[in-house]
């Protein structure tokens, strides 16, 4: 389409500037992560003496050995187990609640559908706030249990509405054919609607999973027992542990390289699923449905 136009000198300069600016910007945004990864493989003396480096002079794995040994090791491994458990269970529960409700609401002439939809939209605008929700969780006996990290956020209204739009747009003929063959609505849901929506399930599964892995607020609000802390909380406590915050005077302070290693461990799972995330949101699932 641009063939009819010949680029002038000014166009070329403009183009080069745009490429340069964007490249620098993109590099600046990821360089802190690269620095942290590099620092996690450097000996403590190097971190304390070199302000910034992208390749350590004397690479070592000692920080990672320290993370997984001694009392720190116990804390880290236990919290990683908690985070993995909460992420897996939480995501499954998210998907169960989100998919069933979205499908239930996808029948356009369902009696009472409108009332339920209005309720959902209402809760997107108005909510009780932090303290009433906290008191509810406490009164339901969920305080200081893992269920408090999972159930209060079982459905993201926004995600549910997008999935619902997807179900509405599924071809009706398949469902009608199945229903003539004597399949119940639940059968149609499991045998037809779900297999057709695997990309959508994968997308929202990943988004929910990232949310669980990254969640800090939930654990801060609802957990008391340190042994139940998920990884993000332990990561925070290790990084912030300095001479004046350390509870026991005899407790050894974590070295900076160990802090770097812990940050890397908190980030790596995200980077692992990132290519899949990108693949799906590139497909426009997220944005295309906003209008709905």
């Amino acid at each position, binding site marked *: 389409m641009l063939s009819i136009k010949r680029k002038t000198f000014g166009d070329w300069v403009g183009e080069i500037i745009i490429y340069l600016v964007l490249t620098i*910007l993109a590099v600046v*945004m990821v360089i802190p992560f690269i620095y942290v990864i590099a620092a996690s493989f450097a000996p403590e003396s190097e971190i304390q003496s070199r302000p910034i480096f992208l390749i350590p002079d004397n690479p070592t794995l000692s920080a990672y050995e320290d993370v997984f040994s001694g009392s720190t090791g116990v804390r880290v491994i236990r919290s990683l187990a908690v985070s993995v458990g909460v992420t897996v269970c939480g995501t499954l529960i998210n998907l169960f609640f989100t998919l069933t*409700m979205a499908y*239930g609401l996808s029948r356009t002439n369902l009696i009472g559908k409108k009332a339920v939809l209005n309720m959902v939209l209402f*809760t997107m605008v108005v909510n*009780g706030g932090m*303290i009433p929700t906290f008191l509810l969780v406490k009164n339901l006996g969920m305080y200081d249990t893992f269920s408090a990290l999972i159930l209060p956020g079982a459905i993201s209204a926004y995600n549910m509405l997008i999935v619902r739009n997807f179900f509405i747009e599924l071809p009706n003929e398949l469902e009608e054919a199945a229903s003539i063959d004597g399949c119940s609505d639940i059968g149609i849901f499991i045998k037809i609607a779900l297999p057709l929506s695997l990309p959508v399930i994968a997308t929202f599964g990943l988004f929910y999973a990232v949310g669980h892995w990254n969640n800090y607020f939930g654990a801060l609000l609802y957990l008391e027992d340190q042994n139940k802390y998920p990884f993000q909380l332990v990561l925070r406590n290790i990084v912030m542990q300095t001479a004046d915050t350390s509870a026991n005077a005899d407790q050894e302070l974590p070295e900076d390289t160990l802090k770097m290693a812990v940050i890397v461990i908190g980030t790596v799972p995200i980077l692992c699923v990132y290519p899949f995330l990108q693949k799906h949101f590139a497909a426009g699932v997220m944005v295309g449905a906003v209008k709905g």
Partner: protein
Amino acid sequence: MAKTKTAVLTAEQKAAKRAKTWTQIKRDRWMYLLLLPGFLFFLIFKIFPLWGILISFQEYYAGLSFFDARWIGFQNFVDFFVGADFLRLLKNTLIISFMNLIFYFPLPIILSLLLNEIKVQWYKKVLQTLVYVPHFVSWVVIASISFMILKTPAIMGNDAYTGGALFEIIKAISGKEVDLLENPSSIYWVLLFQAIWKETGWGTVIFLAALAGVDVEQYEAAIVDGATRWQQLIYITIPAILGTIVTMFVLRMGSVLDTGFEQIILMQNTLNQSASETFDTYVYNYGRVGGDYGHTTAIGLFKSIVSLTCIQLANRAAHAVGQAGLF
């Protein structure tokens, strides 16, 4: 129309209609079953806490039961508004919010316009992949990295020890050793730059989608007419995404008092608290930690009402300038 119709319905017709409704409900019984878990979730975790708003009219502390708490009318609100904290919280919240609006809000728009100019598709993809990364990383990681790169040297004034990478860069440029993390006036800039770092890239997604919807023929016609690239930008591209910009602006106004709880609570310390305490962190610090439920629920309610009002006003303003707005 519908009214007159019902009026002439005979008793038999009514019965028939009711029977039809009933068959329809029976036919859809499995759909209702599928709907049930989600419905219960919204009822219990989203609707039921609204009842807790009553707490804001009570003198309600941790350890007390709801039924034992004394009803005190609007006393919590009065105490809050005339109290010493209110103006400070309002000031902090508005500073953070408006710095975000002025400095952050235009960035995703500018970035997406720049990305839109990149015609080499694979390179555009690479750039997008890189700038989206920080969005998916947790606030804990963002805060921890900020802490590591801004920290002061282990031993101040000794050249054998270095501070964090950014601390050293700032020192080299300004010649001063500044501790951005423990300084009330600088914490706002730290929060702003974190928000820019984390969300600018991801913020482009919605604008890029709007840009992708622009008809290519418009550009072709403009080029035939001799429009420069700049003119194409002003007369085609920007009008095409104006609706999206307005929508995002209305949404932003609705959350003018929402300052991102996780980010601020993670960056807060006793030295910068005078500047970094916002409504959200105050509710957490005095409500959840301090146990002053009645008072802090009142603050939450105040915040919700202001948000609703702001979003209404912004939406009306959007209509006034001829945009669709949010609703």
